């Protein structure tokens, strides 16, 4: 169901109308800081921005000049009948318009370039940052939330750069220009316009504040409606099995109806501003015509000036509407930008280790020597303070010393955990859900860092090992299998990018995945979509195991890796893996006895503490918790 939410979230994105048709009323918390950060991004296209502003200026002036030209045209040429002069003047006007059109063209072209390159960089920075965040961040933020940084928020920023900002600038220029020209033409007539303008602004502010309330209301009910749709469609099979269709329809109708009424109100208030502003503009136009006429009669005005003035007054409402709309859009975009920057300012994973993992080979005298090619032998490379390098063989010896760990302060998940895994051993963790099994493995590869105690890996404290190298030395098959869009073989190759097709197929054979893969429509080249939704859970697990097998690392962690695979296939996999991992360390988490019974050591964990350790036979003889678990005498929950 979580899955669907994500898809649905993405679907909303290009709804476009959903977000853009209806105004949103968001504001950034730190306006200045956010603007400063946006400006820094824009700084990369300084030149473009300068050209854009110049183009905006030219096209605004051209438009204003065009309207003003009506006055000399009528007064000096048309009324006196000077056609030669009129032709010349019109030619001049034509040039002004042409320049305006060219400026408009250049401006929008450059704006596209500027906006797209800027958002490209923002998106890339955001993605790169995301890759460096620690897992705790992903634990505390939903996928949908992070996804909407990339979709809605970046979209809004893009809209702002592409459209809102230029609109705002050109509208402001037009407004200033129009007012100036009006005052030049007739200060008296301008007073009339000014009065109407003030009324317009007051009304639009009033309506905006009211529709804000309705908009919020609408969004809330929309959330409820979409939530219900999502839930009842995700659970549609349950609804059918329980004959619950009529109930669902009834409940849906209730919410649907509620939404209809609220949304209609919100739409109404959002739209009401249009006819009011437009017609106030018309009233202004009418009043100007009347008073202009009277002024002409009093010989204090002329027909040409009136014509020009009317042109201006007819369009004065437009820039005002634009400015209010764009300020809203810009605020919403800045609020989005602020959320993006919040992610970018998260602290990345700590990685202070300087010990790295290298391929090694043995020199004739028995020492280790670094080499390029893959030898199946690895070494830890320590740079010492005095500049010397030493090499320690990677054996897969993992030891926990008094490890204490908590995800949330005050809620310990692991307490006083001390354990060891000797090279070549298979260690199984057993315990009820939430006992801390997965957490132990997550500490080994430093998805999380211990709060107290330490973990030694071949005698090295893991915090001294470079994270990437630490993780490269471990292959994990996780509880939830995730695959990427691409072919089956690409997904296997994810384990080791330079693996050949043959190596990938071999890995698939080890994982017993070969037989089902060959039955897919295009075999290994079948494209997997949507996180492998067209494969069964068991099949996905098989691919994930093949992915780990192709990596063929010194240490392997299998976290419920075979939970959806039948026991027969599991046994085949086990055989393959035993051969592959001979002499290497394997950690296994499972709740099937068949999966754990062959382990060298079984560790029983309860409430974050190790309570038993030993082989299957030893633990059975102990007649402790493991014995009870095996014989089904106790309930764990």
């Amino acid at each position, binding site marked *: 169901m979580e899955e*669907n939410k994500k898809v*649905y979230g*993405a679907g909303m994105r290009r709804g476009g*109308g959903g977000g853009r*048709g209806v105004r949103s009323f968001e504001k950034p918390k730190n306006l200045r800081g956010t603007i400063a950060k946006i400006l820094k991004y824009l700084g990369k296209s300084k030149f473009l921005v300068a050209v854009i502003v110049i183009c905006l200026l030219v096209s605004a002036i051209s438009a204003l000049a065009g309207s003003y030209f009506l006055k000399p045209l009528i007064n000096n040429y*048309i009324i006196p009948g000077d056609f030669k002069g009129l032709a010349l003047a019109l030619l001049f006007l*034509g040039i002004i318009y042409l320049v305006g059109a060219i400026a*408009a063209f250049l401006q*929008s*072209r450059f704006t596209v*370039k500027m906006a797209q*390159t800027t958002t*490209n960089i923002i*998106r*890339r920075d955001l993605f790169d940052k995301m*890759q460096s965040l620690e897992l705790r961040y*992903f634990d505390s933020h939903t996928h949908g939330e992070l*996804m909407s940084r990339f979709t809605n928020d970046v979209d809004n920023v893009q809209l702002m750069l*592409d459209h809102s900002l230029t609109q705002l600038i050109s509208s402001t220029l037009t407004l200033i220009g129009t007012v100036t020209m009006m005052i030049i033409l007739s200060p008296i007539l301008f007073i009339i316009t000014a009065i109407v303008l003030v009324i317009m602004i007051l009304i639009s502010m009033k309506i905006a504040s009211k529709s804000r309330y309705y908009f919020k209301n609408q969004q809330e009910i929309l959330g409820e409606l*979409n939530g219900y749709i*999502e839930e*009842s*469609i995700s659970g549609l099979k349950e609804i*059918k099995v*329980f004959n619950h269709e009529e109930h669902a*329809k009834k409940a849906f109708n209730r919410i*649907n109806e509620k*939404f209809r009424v609220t*949304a*209609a109100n919100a739409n109404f208030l959002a*739209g*009401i501003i*249009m*006819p009011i502003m437009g017609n106030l503009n*018309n009233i202004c136009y*009418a009043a100007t*015509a009347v008073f202009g*006429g009277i002024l002409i009669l009093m010989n204090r005005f002329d*027909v040409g000036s009136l014509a020009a003035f009317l042109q201006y007054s*007819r369009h004065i409402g437009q820039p005002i509407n634009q400015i209010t709309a764009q300020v809203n859009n810009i605020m919403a975009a800045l609020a989005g930008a602020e959320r993006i920057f919040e992610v970018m300012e998260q602290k990345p994973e700590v990685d202070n280790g300087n010990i790295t993992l290298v391929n090694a080979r043995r020199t004739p005298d028995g020492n280790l020597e670094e080499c390029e090619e893959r030898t199946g032998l690895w070494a830890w490379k320590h740079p010492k303070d005095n500049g010397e390098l030493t090499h320690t063989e990677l054996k897969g010896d993992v030891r926990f010393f008094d490890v204490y760990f908590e995800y949330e302060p005050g809620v310990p998940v692991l307490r006083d955990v001390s354990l060891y895994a000797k090279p070549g051993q298979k260690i199984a963790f057993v315990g009820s*859900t939430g006992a801390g099994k997965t957490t132990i493995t997550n500490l080994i590869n430093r998805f999380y860092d211990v709060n107290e105690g330490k973990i030694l890996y071949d005698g090295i404290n893991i915090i001294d090992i470079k994270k*990437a190298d630490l*993780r490269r030395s*471990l292959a*994990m098959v996780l509880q939830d299998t*995730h695959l990427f*869009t691409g072919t089956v073989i690409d997904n296997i190759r994810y384990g080791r990018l330079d693996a050949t097709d043959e190596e990938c197929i071999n890995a698939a054979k080890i994982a017993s995945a070969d037989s089902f893969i060959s039955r897919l429509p295009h075999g290994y080249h079948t494209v997997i*979509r949507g996180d492998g*939704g067209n494969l069964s859970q068991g099949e996905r697990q098989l691919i994930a195991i093949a992915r780990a097998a192709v*990596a063929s690392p010194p240490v392997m962690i299998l976290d419920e890796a075979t939970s959806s695979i*039948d*026991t*027969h296939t*599991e046994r085949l996999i086990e055989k393959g893996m035993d051969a592959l991992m001979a002499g290497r360390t394997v950690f296994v988490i499972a709740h*099937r006895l068949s999966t754990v019974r062959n382990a060298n050591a079984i560790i029983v964990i309860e409430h974050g503490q190790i309570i038993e350790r030993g082989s299957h036979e030893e633990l059975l003889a102990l007649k402790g918790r493991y014995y009870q*678990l*095996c014989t*089904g005498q106790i*309930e*764990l929950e």
Partner: protein
Amino acid sequence: MIKRLFAYIGQYKKYVISCIFLMTFDVLCEMMMPFLMAKIVDVGIPQKDIAFIARVGGLMIVLALAAIGFGVLNMRFSANASQGFAANIRRALFDKVQSFSFSNIDYFSTASLVTRLTNDVTQIQIMLLMSLRILLRAPLMLITACFFAMSINLKLSSIILIAIPALVISIYFIIRSAEHLFSTMQQRLDSLNNTVRENLIAIRVVKAFVREGYEKLKFKKVNDAFTRAAINAGYLISLVMPVMLFILNFTTITVIWFGGKMVSTGTMGTGELIGFISYIMQILTSTMIFSMVFILYARAEASAQRIVEVLDAKVDIVDKPALPEGGIAPSVSSGKVEFKDVYFRYGNSANSNGFNNKKGKDVLSDITFNIESGEIVGIIGGTGSGKTSLISLIPRLYDVTSGQVLVDGTDVRDYNLKTLRKGIGIVLQSNVLFSGTIRENLLWGNENATQEEIEEAARNAQAHDFIMNFPDGYDTVLGQAGVNLSGGQKQRLCIARALIKKPHILILDDSTSAVDVATEAKIMESFNKNLKEATIIIISQRISSIKEADKIIVLDDGKISGIGKHEMLYESNIIYREIYDTQQGGLIL
């Protein structure tokens, strides 16, 4: 497709009609303005008739006020019409989806259905809203402005004949060439979003395999590809405004030139010229907006198509139109189940799934067996052996491809679907609970169940104790804001929900996989004790869950490999013995 949807306007049709009328009045009022203004300049001023000027001016203001009224009413009605329209479509969709069979659901996929009910409906709603507010205005404006322009000066109006085609043709060409640029952009956006989404979901995999650099590179590629496409599309679109401006302004210049001549020869008034220019502007802007209508409709068309697809989907599992002979509707009374030569494959219905590796291959073949009422039957087999498919045929979640499934001696296809499913309790693998309280969820099984009945079912499913451990007991709210249940608790609630139905046949599809062995044993015990009458069919990966069953069916690759009691199968069936041996009689937890 959009036309087909218009039938759903239903009771809100009156608003649409009112909107068209209101818009007509509104446009007329607005279009009168330049005309009246021309009168002031050409009649009032030369004749120095202040009263006339004031009268005409007053009329203009009255018209403007009237237009506000029309406009505001239009906003109200258009909002009502579009939201009502959307609500009707949503409802029709929801009702249709509720009638879907499992194959229909598989075909559309949950995510796509959700998008159609939310996003696509919103698109259609916006389309109607915009149409009633802005877009339909454009043709009205165009017609009235043409009328006024011609009534001012017919000869000068002929300029429209050149200007409009020029405008329409240039817009047409830009839009046509933009289309495929935009679809490329959309595709690349999809793959961009997909990359982000996958990385979010699989962040642990990325980190575990140290693939951050690889993913960054992958993202850079899709990001750059998207940017290139977006810039290409943007460049083309940036032609639109300048071309418009160019045509608009050069029309104005032409009008002034010819009009100016007419004014000086006295065939036209100055005011008329000013008014005429206003109308020409109006005509051209309306033409522009009108062309935008097509873009919007093209977009809405795609959504409409997706909606109609759902509405038109053929539901493949429906009740028989007439009762079988005798006229008495059959109902489940004892719980006998019989499979006769059943073959089954997915996707053989009218809606076949595009990608389904199960398609075309028989999932079940040659299945014949009998279950007497009151028996407990276990079904076991490897991944993909057809266990779930088999039990899905009993409550007719899917129809057999050939052969027959009989419940109490009657073919399941002869039952009324509701009656059939009422008699069968089934716990699906997915274990979906709904937001609400535990009680509300349990009442799904039977809305009239008493507290005693609820508790009894919960006790039988071993759920009562943990429910009572929550502070709010049965009124504990589940879901995001409420308590989160463990996998085993969820499964036990689902079992309880099915038990409240008091079904004659109870089917558990791997429903105790997350429940520990001890608790599972207790559940089985209470089934044995308290559900003596009911036929119980259990699918399990664990042999311990079904070892005691009256009958065990071993499935292998869609065929029955053996039927019988544990001892007998252990002796005679290799597959069964192998599963048993690997499990050594148990699992941990």
